[in-house]
């Protein structure tokens, strides 16, 4: 649309050289302004250049300028608020087209719709007392065309810049992700390699220190240090109380990730539901970030595998040992048991004793088994440990000091226990018999007056024949029949007549030997033997009486539990 009829036409006679020069110069000005509009400035600045150029190109001034964004929103520019109050509505009525605007104040106004490739980008309203000349109108039109193009270009530029910002943010995120993945891959590679190398816990601690530059501690569930990586290992290693340790582990087990506890970052080593230990980064300066936490948590995973593996091996070996012991005491082929024993590092060709033990109290079998294992290790005994029929079964190679074994176990478990020791076995084939002997010796010990202690089967002597286990009551009755009066007397008087009689019979009736063994005077012995005769009303020189009394004292000794 053009302002036909409005503009003032100039005749050819007015177009002198000077006029042409001025017109070219004005066009050059429009060109220069256009160059500036395209120098990357924002839309408002482009519009400001256009609005302020109007008076330089014509007798008009800028009445108001409006920017229209890609969504159609109109933004009045500086100065628009001073324009006629009806102007904005009149501009809107033009619906994106250029055209004349008539308001009550009588000024001539023209609205330039600034249209570009993507549609309307703005409106520029010029005003004058009189309509401009066609030459001025041409210059203003040229200015507005350049402005519209510049606004379109600016919108594209801004859109590209926004896209570039988004792209840059995405690239930054991608770069961060790649960097994080690189770090995680490094952690994965290093720890996996260490795990596969068999370097164990100390290797994992060292590798984690290399990855994080922080000292590393691996503790068992009780707080004992198992491995340390890096400098500054405390000596002695500090240990908290049992209750605090249990509270800490309980708290940690409720959390899914590593947590900070004072100057440490801690991760539980917990395959499935069982806590095997704790992996900690020592970080008093609190420098650890996401990377270090990842390394710690992956380290705890690798460590969990390592410890689980170790435990599985131990359990497998324990199972193999138990199976072998079970087979040996129930009887199996010699050749196969040699091979199986060798596989778990035990020399079965040495002489063995079977030991069976039971301990009173609230000890779980595992505790007794573990204590037994530590005891035989302490005593330097090569052995195989198992459990059978509620008792701990021990196959010990070589000489066995029963007293030392009992003392060691008593130290760990208390004195309320009994040990039965079978006779020596030179071949595995004899082990079932030795086991039965050990069980027998254990039962006799447990049923004796002093039920705690150890009993060797060989020490039972004739008692082995007399007390088969099924006739224990008869044995007790026999002892009471022959020694009952003396036992009652000893109890009442706190005397030792039964012990004196037993020693006298063991010494074959020799006064001197008996007195020496009992470390008493002959006259004392004579007195005691006299009392024995009176109480029992028996003749000690009678062969039958003497045999029965000797058997009874032997049984009494076994039943009493003395060795």
């Amino acid at each position: 649309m053009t302002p036909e009829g409005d503009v003032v036409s100039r005749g050819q006679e007015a177009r002198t050289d000077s006029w042409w020069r001025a017109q070219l110069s004005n066009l050059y000005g429009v060109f220069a302004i256009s160059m500036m509009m395209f120098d990357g400035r924002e839309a408002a600045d482009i519009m400001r250049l256009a609005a302020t150029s109007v008076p330089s190109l014509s007798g008009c001034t800028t009445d108001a300028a409006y920017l229209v964004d890609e969504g159609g929103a109109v933004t009045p520019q500086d100065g628009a608020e001073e324009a006629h109050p009806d102007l904005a509505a009149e501009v809107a009525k033009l619906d994106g087209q250029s055209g004349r605007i008539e308001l009550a104040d009588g000024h001539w106004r023209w609205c330039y719709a600034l249209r570009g490739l993507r549609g309307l980008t703005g409106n520029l309203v010029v005003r004058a007392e009189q309509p401009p000349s066609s030459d001025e109108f041409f210059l203003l039109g040229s200015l507005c065309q350049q402005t519209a193009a510049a606004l379109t270009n600016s919108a594209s530029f801004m859109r590209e810049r926004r896209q570039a910002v988004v792209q840059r943010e995405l690239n930054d995120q991608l770069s961060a992700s790649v960097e994080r993945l690189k770090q995680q891959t490094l952690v994965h590679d290093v720890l996996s390699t260490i795990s596969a190398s068999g370097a164990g816990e100390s290797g994992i601690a060292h590798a984690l220190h290399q990855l994080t530059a922080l000292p590393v501690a691996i503790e068992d569930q009780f707080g004992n240090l198992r491995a340390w990586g890096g400098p500054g290992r405390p000596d002695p290693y500090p240990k908290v109380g049992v209750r605090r340790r249990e509270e800490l582990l309980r708290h940690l087990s409720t959390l899914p990730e590593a947590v900070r506890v004072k100057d440490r970052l801690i991760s539980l080593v917990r395959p499935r539901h069982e806590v095997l230990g704790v992996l900690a980064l020592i970080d008093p300066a609190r420098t650890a970030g996401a990377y270090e936490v990842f390394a710690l948590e992956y380290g705890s995973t690798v460590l969990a595998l390592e410890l689980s593996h170790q435990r599985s091996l131990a359990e497998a070996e324990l199972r193999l040992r138990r199976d072998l012991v079970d087979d040996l005491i129930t009887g199996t082929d010699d050749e196969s048991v040699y091979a199986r024993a060798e596989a778990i590092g035990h020399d079965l060709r040495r002489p063995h004793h079977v030991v069976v033990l039971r301990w009173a109290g609230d000890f779980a079998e595992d505790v007794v088994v573990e204590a037994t294992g530590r005891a035989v290790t302490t005593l330097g005994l090569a052995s195989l440990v198992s459990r059978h029929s509620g008792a701990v079964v021990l196959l010990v190679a070589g000489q066995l000091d029963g007293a030392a074994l009992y003392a060691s176990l008593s130290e760990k478990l208390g004195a309320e226990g009994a040990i039965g020791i079978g006779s020596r076995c030179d071949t595995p084939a004899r082990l079932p018999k030795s086991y039965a002997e050990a069980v027998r010796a254990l039962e006799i010990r447990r049923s004796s007056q002093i039920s705690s202690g150890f009993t060797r089967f060989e020490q039972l002597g004739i008692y082995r024949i007399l007390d088969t286990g099924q006739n224990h009551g008869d044995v007790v009755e026999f002892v009471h029949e022959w020694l009952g009066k003396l036992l009652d007397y000893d109890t009442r008087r706190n005397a030792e007549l039964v012990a004196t009689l037993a020693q006298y019979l063991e010494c074959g009736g020799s006064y001197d030997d008996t007195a020496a063994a009992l470390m008493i005077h002959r006259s004392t012995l004579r007195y005691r033997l006299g009392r024995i005769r009176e109480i029992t009303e028996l003749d000690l020189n009678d062969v039958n009486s003497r045999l029965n009394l000797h058997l009874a004292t032997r049984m009494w000794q076994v039943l009493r539990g003395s060795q």
Partner: protein
Amino acid sequence: MAEKDRTDREVTLGGAALAPGDHLCVFHRGRAERDRLLIPFLTEGLRAGDAVLYLAAEGERENFRERLGHVGDLVLTEPDSGHLRDGEFAPDALFAMLDGWSRRKLGTGDHPFGRIVGDMSWAAPRLGSGLIDVLLAEEVAVTAWGQGLPQVILCLYDLDLFGGDLIIPMIKSHPKSWMAGTLVENPYYLSSTENGHHPHFERRIPS
């Protein structure tokens, strides 16, 4: 002083060669862009032994003295000590200063060439149609005056401070302009003969 031929010395602005007698209108956006053009231009002249006159923006004289390294014949002024009198533009004083400087530096043979730069930022807060007309007449007169001298003159206009109402008249009145990173020539610039409606400027042109 009437030497108008090109010298064999290199006079460049932003890599573009200038000729003796050139009077450029330099449009820039912000001081950083200005300094990227101006510092090499002034340094080039000082090192070549040119006399340099820089009418700096308010408060920038010492800063430029530091940056230019105290070498060569450098005269630095600020608006209050030159072309402003009581805060108002004093074109006669400006002309007197320019002409006096040229006569002293170039007329005595001490310097073969001169470089004059004026930062026009001082005009932004005072701008109105009256001042624009005065500036336009001044620029036209300076163009006419400088054409006969072995020197180049740059007038610096910050596009962040000035709008089209000043830019277009300045472009129309300068034979050469620096804009958007390039040197453009305007063969249709308004010379003194086309500006007879500013009767006072011609008398400022030194004889």
